[in-house]
């Protein structure tokens, strides 16, 4: 049996696949490429780069939307260190984001493997649709329905738990359970995407490799750990990065389910900066929160890329 480490390409292998002399490129490709890329470039410039630059500029100003802005230098960034709530909100955001990430990556993989196991095709289709459907529904609509179901005294969830003898849980009103509710609802909504990506990754693994392993006498766990996991590692890495970024940016679920409470127990950074911008009309400070939060995500993603070299295998 091979191991994951032996599946890594040796340094010498690179020479085998190394680039040869560049093939002559047909004329006109550049213009065609530019034509295809232009809509995406414009969209990126208008809806991503320009607002980002605008936010960066705003972070050096005091501006309430309605009066003239005042240049304040780095004051808004200095305020970050004096904000008594910000650290707590970072804490609640991190807690919920990591939990959502774990559910998506681990449970998503488990469910994808189960969906790829033997079952009637209609049943497989039913499960796939069931898992994917919440993903395409508006987050606010999903959260509204769950808010109704999770009501402590009149909700269906506690009613069903009551039939099993479980006491009423204050899903939305207690600091312990409010973030758990946000984690559950967001995971329920987003896990379909992770499953979909996992299934695509699983289907790209050559059957011959698994069949060869079976012939070699490898059990299910060995096949998963020595073949499926290494070959699926790029997919897992992709989902870790995407889910990290997405889960740190959740807004609709805590906003609708718990309004970030009780206190700040289920408040996210995005919700917090939204309130500073459009509740306090403190656009400069909200921009400073946004810029620093974006930097945190960039660093987090860079760290993930750095670590990924140790465990990700690209065939």
């Amino acid at each position, binding site marked *: 049996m091979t191991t994951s480490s032996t599946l890594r390409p040796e340094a010498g292998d690179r020479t085998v696949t190394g680039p040869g002399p560049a093939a002559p490129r047909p004329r006109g490709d550049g213009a065609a490429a530019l034509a295809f890329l232009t809509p995406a470039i414009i969209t990126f410039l208008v809806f991503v780069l320009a607002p980002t630059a605008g936010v960066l500029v705003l972070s050096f100003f005091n501006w309430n939307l309605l009066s003239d802005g005042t240049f304040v230098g780095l004051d808004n960034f200095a305020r970050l260190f004096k904000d008594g709530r910000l650290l707590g909100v970072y804490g609640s955001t991190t807690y919920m984001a990591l939990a959502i990430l774990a559910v998506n990556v681990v449970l998503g993989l488990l469910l994808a493997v189960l969906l790829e196991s033997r079952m009637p095709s209609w049943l497989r289709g039913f499960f796939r649709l069931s898992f994917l459907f919440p993903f395409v529904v508006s987050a606010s609509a999903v959260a509204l329905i769950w808010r109704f179901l999770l009501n402590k005294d009149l909700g269906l969830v506690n009613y069903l738990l009551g039939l099993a003898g479980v006491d009423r849980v204050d899903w939305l009103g207690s600091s312990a359970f409010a973030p758990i509710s946000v984690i559950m609802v967001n995971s329920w909504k987003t896990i379909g995407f992770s499953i979909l990506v996992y299934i695509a990754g699983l289907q790209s693994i050559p059957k011959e490799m698994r069949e060869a392993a079976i012939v070699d006498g490898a059990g299910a766990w060995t096949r998963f750990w020595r073949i499926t996991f290494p070959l699926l590692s790029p997919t897992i890495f992709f989902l870790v990065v995407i889910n990290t970024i997405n889960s740190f940016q959740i807004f609709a679920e805590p906003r609708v389910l718990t309004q*970030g409470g009780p206190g700040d127990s289920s408040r996210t950074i995005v919700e917090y900066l939204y309130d500073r911008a459009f509740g306090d009309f403190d656009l400069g400070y909200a921009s400073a929160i946004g810029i620093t939060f974006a930097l945190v995500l960039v660093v987090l993603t860079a760290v993930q890329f750095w670590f990924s070299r140790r465990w990700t295998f690209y065939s």
Partner: protein
Amino acid sequence: MNVPNRKVALACATAALAVTALAGCSSDAAPSGSSASGDKSLEIVYWNYGPAAESGNKATADAFMAAHPDVKVTLTPVTGENWGTYYANAATLIASGKHPDLMVISGEGAQFVHSNNLVQPINAYLGKDPEAKAIVDDIAPGLINGFTVKGDVLTLTYGWNDMVVYYNTDVFEKAGIEPPAADWTWDDFKATAKKLSKDTDGDGKPDQYGFTWASNEIFPGIMPWVANAGGNLTSDDVCTATADTPQVTKAVSFLKGLIDEGISPAPMPMSDVFTRFQNGQVAMFGAGRWPIATFLPAGFKAFDIQLYPKGDTYKTVFGGAGYPILKSSENPDLAWEYQKFTVSNEIEKQYVGTPGKPGDSIPSRRSVAETISKVGVPPANSDLYYNSIDKYPTLVPYPAPAKYSTFESTVLRHLQQIFASETSVPDGLKSLQGELGGIVTC
């Protein structure tokens, strides 16, 4: 040398963006529309909270244009989950370069628009317009006072809502309980609510509750209780928070007691309350007139209204809405005509509605509001809507500082913790008072 050029280009781009971002925020910037000479157009911003807002504003605009064929009215709907977010979105709109002539605001926004120098007071128009006196005489003084900031009358109120108790008449009848009287007290209320709280499925826990309140708004939430305990959340000049006074503590403790005794469920947002009330899971709740716009079209008529019970005192908590003239208006005189038109009999009748299509607020003109019961729009006690402001003391001013959205969300955040028993009432209110110190200022 490419590098320096790139740097210069980057600096220019950044500067350009800075100019673009900040240019639109000046309220003194020149209006983008055509000049006042000969231009007979009006742009009106309103909160598009649903189809009723859309159709109501359209009907008013159409009627105005019919009466003034040379005037073009443009409506700009602005979304928002509540008044606070509507103001934020409207402010964003204005910052982006729009210069509307009128903008719908509620009483909660009066301090906000005044402190940001957005509106043109109508004192001068009230003094010189011969029609104004008759209009003002037909409007309850509380509605004028509610929109007066530091002597400046910001707008005439076209519609308003008072906080009253809705009760499910079927649930009352089934429990054999008499409808509440206008002079009921907190003790009467609690005794009634307790009788209406039941364990209908025998699991040892209540699944029908006597009363609940909205967790996502303070006016239909705690304010009536605070007012009737003789308190307020701010000082009279709305410059200082008063959230930890004995009166506020008494009101919040009373509500917390209702939860602890199984008379009220854990507080929920208003839209959820509507559903629970209609299906009988909650027998009473507090709101303005707006629930009837949901109840009646859905065929639900088994309800009536009563004043909030009397505590140490009684004060009607209310809020209104109007179309103040913005300083950016090129046609303030025409805008004043539009504002007057919004309180004309013709328009005010729309807020009365019909039994099948009721209005969602109370007309400001007394003479029009009195027709609600005559045309048969439920509930049976609908005369109470106007009487509550005409014949009873009112809570003026609104506890609505300039940073209303932050103020309300801060109050709600602390109340969540109190009602979830995560902090005691005195400790929670003390913490609230400390935080409001930096929000309620002048």
